[in-house]
């Protein structure tokens, strides 16, 4: 699975980095993914990060659905 951060939504609250610093890193204005491929325990952490994120900026998708993008909004 691939984890992504929507930079336009992210407010850099930093929960994702605190939860999984090996996957997420907070920059000046938004978080970035430093380890996009997640499986096993890391996938669980990424899924928890989705719910922790106050702006719903994080998502995970199957690797083969690259470019499918967001549903809207």
């Amino acid at each position, binding site marked *: 699975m691939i984890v992504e951060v929507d930079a336009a939504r992210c407010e850099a609250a930093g929960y994702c980095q605190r939860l999984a610093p090996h996957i997420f890193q907070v920059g000046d204005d938004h978080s970035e993914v430093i380890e996009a491929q997640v499986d096993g325990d890391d996938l669980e952490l990424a899924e*928890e990060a989705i719910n922790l994120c106050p702006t*719903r900026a994080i*998502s995970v998708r199957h690797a083969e659905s690259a470019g499918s993008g967001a549903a809207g*909004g």
Partner: protein
Amino acid sequence: MKTTGTRQPRQWRPAGKDVPDLKAILRSEDLWPSRPDSEPFTGSTVLTLHKEAHFARRRLEAPLFTAVALLDYKRRILMPAIERHIERARDDQRGADGVVRVDLLPFLRSILVRVGADLLGLDLPNDDAAFERLSLLNDKLFEGTRLQWSSRDLDEAVAEGVEYKRLFTEEFVRPAMARRAALVARFRVGEIKEEQLPRDLLTQLLLAPHPIDEDDIVRECIVFLAASNTSTTSAACFTILELDEWLKAHPDDRALLGDVDFLRNAAMESLRLKPPTPIILREAHADIALPSGEQISEGERIGLDLRTVNRDPEVFGAEPDAYNPYRESKFHNFGFSFGPGIHVCIGQPLVVGTRASSGDPVDIDGILVLLLKRLYEFGLELDPADPVVHSPGGDTDVGPFVRFPVKLPSML
């Protein structure tokens, strides 16, 4: 604000001049939330905890605000509560001229206290008396969470609030907590599965890896109940006031009052200009230099005025002081009103909703928009014969309005 009591709230000084300063303040690990006057009501809660303890609490409570949870609250609690109170107004509050008139403050509070009770897990019977009692206690306890802005003698206000907290604990929290503790105990020994546990605050707090004191649980309940109720009520009222003025100048937009997108933008613009918590208070635990060059010394207590940063033309465009539901901003249209940063309001998705993404497949409207839409379907308008009464303390008062009468002329 002038105070009249013998013990007054702790002092603070304004800090932060612009958006870069705001981001620095709200993201700083060395600026801790500061509500010492309200310690018996907000201490050791998600509002005031910091660093690891705060993160642990947010982690515990995050399942209450997933997309699935938001949709569940809307379907199971919010919409039935709205309809129940509309029916009651239709039956009981029709004047001699046939027009239904309601004071929106008790009307919205009655709806929102039902949502809050469910969010907490209070298991109330479906009778009005229990909700009216909870609503009364919530009003009193909310005052306890806002003592910084109180004009009363603090000792007297705290003593009164503590007594209401005792009643809230005994009548509401303790019985519900006992039922949930039994369920959590059964879950821990494998008798039931996690998905069989109720999804509410009390259950989440009882699932904490390290037990949380009853008083801390009660305070968390106070904070959640107050926030889910009063902020949304004032945001809805301010939106109605702003829209009333806007529609006088733009009468064609009256046709858009049934349009969810228009109402969402109208509500967000109102939240930008009138944040429910206008000033965010922090206490410095180290010397800090803000991007503007302003220095904050360790031990200082500062206040960040969101009404100022929410009017930064660089972010919110031309004429930032003006209400404009068509505004296009570089940030959320509601500005920084939910305190983006480490302590961003955990209930933000519940109030303003979420937009579809690859993580959440559908738009979820927040409580604020859903309430406004339903009210405007009944032709909501202000009543010139019975004007809105503002609180004497202004936006930072315990509540910004004393009365908010409206007419619902299309409610047949």
